[in-house]
């Protein structure tokens, strides 16, 4: 149904967000407050590395707008600029052209209300699980009194309770990524950027963490951009899958995923799910 609606601003901008959000929300009382103004707007973003003539165009004219609470995946072959786009959105990397805004404000440098997570957990081995999760508070010199309570809350949320005082080396890769997710969630960011967060994990652990991520993102209603190589993972988690192509890195298509929420593991067995996986594969030119 969303696909058949006329696009409001042309191109990939301004897709009908309210419908998607309504679909995503479980509680009718939670339906849109702002009529679907985008939280994040990526406008004409291009990125070139190196000298102008010999340089590599990592991204060309990327446009995307993301509403509050939306879960977006970026999929595409290696080198299509997914990580580059994420770094530009995070403010870690400047765009060569175009701009990204968050809540109408242009992103020019890293911000504390944007959280990032990488393929490696990147935990500090000298800090316990709990103190790793507290890192954002320590860096922000945030002396709020409910620090401990907030940490306990995210630990509970990710099923890490009992491991607060363990060191990262005592945890499996999957558990370490849970800690990284906690560190991201603890400061309650407006936007979460996840770059193949489960890419280095085995299939079983990844599936389990995907189910948990779906649950957590529905619970916390965090706007998320999720980078992955894994099509099924992207379809399972997302409201929209942004399909990217390479040379130059660009957006090829956007596939709406209107599977019911909450997403449970069972959704994988449905026809609609495999249809959307098929759509994404087609957009990638794989079939």
């Amino acid at each position, binding site marked *: 149904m969303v696909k058949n609606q006329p696009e409001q601003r042309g191109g990939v901008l301004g897709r009908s967000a309210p419908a998607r959000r309504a679909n995503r929300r479980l509680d009718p009382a939670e339906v849109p407050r702002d009529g679907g103004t985008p939280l994040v707007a990526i406008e004409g973003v291009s990125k070139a590395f190196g000298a102008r003539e010999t340089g590599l165009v990592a991204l060309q004219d990327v446009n995307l707008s993301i509403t509050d609470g939306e879960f977006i995946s970026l999929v595409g072959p290696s080198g299509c600029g997914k990580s580059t786009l994420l770094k530009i959105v995070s403010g870690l990397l400047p765009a060569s052209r175009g701009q990204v805004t968050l809540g109408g404000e242009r992103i020019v440098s890293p911000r504390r209300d944007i959280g990032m997570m990488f393929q490696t957990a990147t935990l500090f*081995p000298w800090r316990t699980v709990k103190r790793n999760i507290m890192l954002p508070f320590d*860096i922000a010199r945030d002396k709020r009194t409910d620090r401990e309570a907030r940490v306990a809350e995210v630990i509970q949320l990710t099923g890490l309770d*009992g491991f607060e005082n363990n060191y990262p080396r005592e945890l499996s890769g999957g*558990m370490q990524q849970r800690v990284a997710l906690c560190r991201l969630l603890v400061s309650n960011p407006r936007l979460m950027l996840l770059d193949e967060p489960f890419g280095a994990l085995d299939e079983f652990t990844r599936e389990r963490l995907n189910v948990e991520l779906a649950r957590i993102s529905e619970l916390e209603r965090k706007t998320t951009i999720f980078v992955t190589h894994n099509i099924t993972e992207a379809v399972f988690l997302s409201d929209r899958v942004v399909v990217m192509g390479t040379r130059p890195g660009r957006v090829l298509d956007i596939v709406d995923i209107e599977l019911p929420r909450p997403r449970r593991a069972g959704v994988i067995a449905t026809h609609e799910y495999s249809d959307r996986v098929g759509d994404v594969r087609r957009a990638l030119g794989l079939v």
Partner: protein
Amino acid sequence: MSAVEDRALAPPELGDLFASEIRGESKLAAVAKQVLLTAGSAFLLLGIWEVLSRIDPAFWPQVILSKPTDIIPAFFKAITSGFVWENLWVTFQETIFGFAIGAAGGFLFGVLIAISRTFSRATYPIVILFQTTPRVALAPVFIAWFGFGMSSKVALAAAICFFPVLINTITGLAVVDENALLLMRSLKASKFQTFVHLRLLSAMPSIFAGLKSALTFALIGAVIAELLGSNEGMGQLIDAASFLLQMDDVFAYLMVLGLLGLALFLVVNLVEKKLVFWHSNWDEG
């Protein structure tokens, strides 16, 4: 890394068990094995030495070679005599002061080189130049400057200690996980915060590797300076005894020095295990 994925199966205290679990033996058995094997090879070595020293007294001049059965009594005589302890105390102080000065200097210099490009450009080439010259050759210079007392020994020990700590501090601070740096940037950490929370701590294993060799070098430096010109210290004792061809005593003093070196090394090792507890070889001794 053991899988603790399923927390229903894993009690919280599991982490503590991993170290010995991975090694596949109890701590006691490991220690016993180590002690027995070391003692065994030491005995073998001494046995060979003893046999060689008895083969043909005409061919192996006994006074010079000495033999374990004479050295061991000499060693016990040495460790029960007050003047050996006095001289050992002197050498110990020279080593520790030299180490403290050299290591602190190397560390501070290394930090400055790592954080300031200007400072690095100004000094690093000179540092490399000094590093490639053998610093023990400075011993006569220091003796000429600081005299026959302890200060010249402290100076040489410090000069030798300085470089391993410096180089290891620089490399440790230079090699930092890229993603960890990205994480700090995304958290808007200041340069100072990144240094304190990330770079310094991730450099600790490397810095400690430098400290360990520095401490051994400090002892070497102190003893060399004593050998070249001193009126006290273990080096001076060795020099005097070998001048009189009392080789049993020379070897006994060497053993005392060896034990001092070992004790110092074990102390640094212990401090390292406490301070850099997260480093991967913390349970390998």
